[in-house]
């Protein structure tokens, strides 16, 4: 199993039946494929729909039914479409149960940077700042390091997406919960030791006496 699939299968366990969820483009989108049986989640796409799903089969793509990346999608029975003000009202107004986003850096305060690298990559924040500020629960799904460099830092060096503390960080090495006291190491990935995680992390981690192995969906 590749690292992204592992992360997606762990994040998928965080959903509750009936949740309204928004998944970022890329790794987070993989999560939808790994939901446990019996968990029905409504997925929002911020361009204006609740009830998005992957295109069910070829030949049904339509220009007026797209995801936030502009690619054709399907819609489940019971889907609803709306304008961008309502879409972001759902996000900021406390109606969105959970968002899963990628990350460039997370720091000891649980703050996330994921929208720009000054001088190198300035794609714009899109909906990320609203999602992190407004979702009831924010889950960061990212690789633990980038080209060997830690992404979980004492202090983010990249511009923040929000000052809000995210709720959970799931990587290919660990599950970490940012708390008021600091970052708590909750789980390690299969085959990864606590020592491995500490070596790959710049931030100080709070390590409980017992750190279980990460469960994942089938």
């Amino acid at each position, binding site marked *: 199993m590749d690292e992204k699939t592992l992360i997606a299968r762990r994040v998928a366990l965080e959903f509750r039946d009936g949740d309204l969820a928004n998944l970022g483009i890329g790794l987070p989108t993989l999560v939808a494929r790994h939901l446990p049986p019996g968990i029905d989640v409504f997925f929002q*796409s*911020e*361009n*204006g*729909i609740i009830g998005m799903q992957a295109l069910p089969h070829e030949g049904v793509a*339509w*220009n*007026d*039914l*797209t*995801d*936030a*990346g*502009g690619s054709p999608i399907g*819609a489940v029975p019971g889907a609803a*479409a*709306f*304008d*961008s*003000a309502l*879409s*972001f009202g759902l*996000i*900021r107004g406390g109606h969105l149960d959970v968002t899963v986003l990628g990350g460039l850096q997370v720091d000891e305060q649980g703050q996330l940077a994921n929208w720009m690298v000054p001088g190198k*990559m*300035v*794609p*714009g*924040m*899109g*909906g*990320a*700042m*609203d999602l992190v*500020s*407004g979702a009831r629960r924010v889950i960061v799904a990212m690789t633990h390091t980038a080209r060997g460099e830690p992404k979980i830092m004492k202090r983010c060096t990249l*511009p*923040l*997406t*929000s*000052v809000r503390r995210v709720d959970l960080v799931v990587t290919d090495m660990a599950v970490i919960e940012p708390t008021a006291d600091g970052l708590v190491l909750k789980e390690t990935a299969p085959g990864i030791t606590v020592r491995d995680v500490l070596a790959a992390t710049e931030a100080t981690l709070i390590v409980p006496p017992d750190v279980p192995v990460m469960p994942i969906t089938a």
Partner: protein
Amino acid sequence: MKKVVKLTDAVSRIPDGAVLMIGGFMGAGTPPGLIDELVRQGKRELTVIGNDTARPGVGIGKLIAARMVRRVITSHIGTNPETQRQMIAGETEVELVPQGTLAERIRAAGFGLGGVLTPTGVGTVVADGKRTIEIDGRSFLLELPLKADFALINAWRADYLGNLEFALTSRNFNPLMAMAAAAVIAEAENIVPVGVIPPDSVGVPNVLVDHLVGKERSHG
């Protein structure tokens, strides 16, 4: 009042230097005929307000590629390398706005509000130069209204009076922008007789639409 006009006439009303709101999200819900005609007429020095600059060759991306845009106010340019290149080279000014804030700034202008207070961006670079206001112990940024000279709107159907109906994710910023511009030019996939669009299905009421463009068909 006759609202249905030829595509060329609709676009010739737009002067160089105009501030345009253009509906759409990665090209979905961006009026294709109006974009192509803007390029054909070679408008210059435009300010464009839109969710994104799509991809090269798609939607607003065509205006960027044709070097017609002096300034763009948008939430995302990551899918269009040409916008990023022009921004870094100092050829095009880019103001990045969080997507929900962009929607609310447009809505504020159209709905007669003096601004909106949003938690989005507090404590980040987005807050630079803006007022932070405390309400019940929470911090909010004061974001100001955004209005335009023209809104270019894409609808699935319109009737001859200019009532507009939208389809799924092509709705996005279109109904908000139709409220926030001095003049509204709507392009519809289909123009249908009055009465075909039921009142409950009207997404933009006809009084907001100044000029309406349909697909130009030849029946010869």
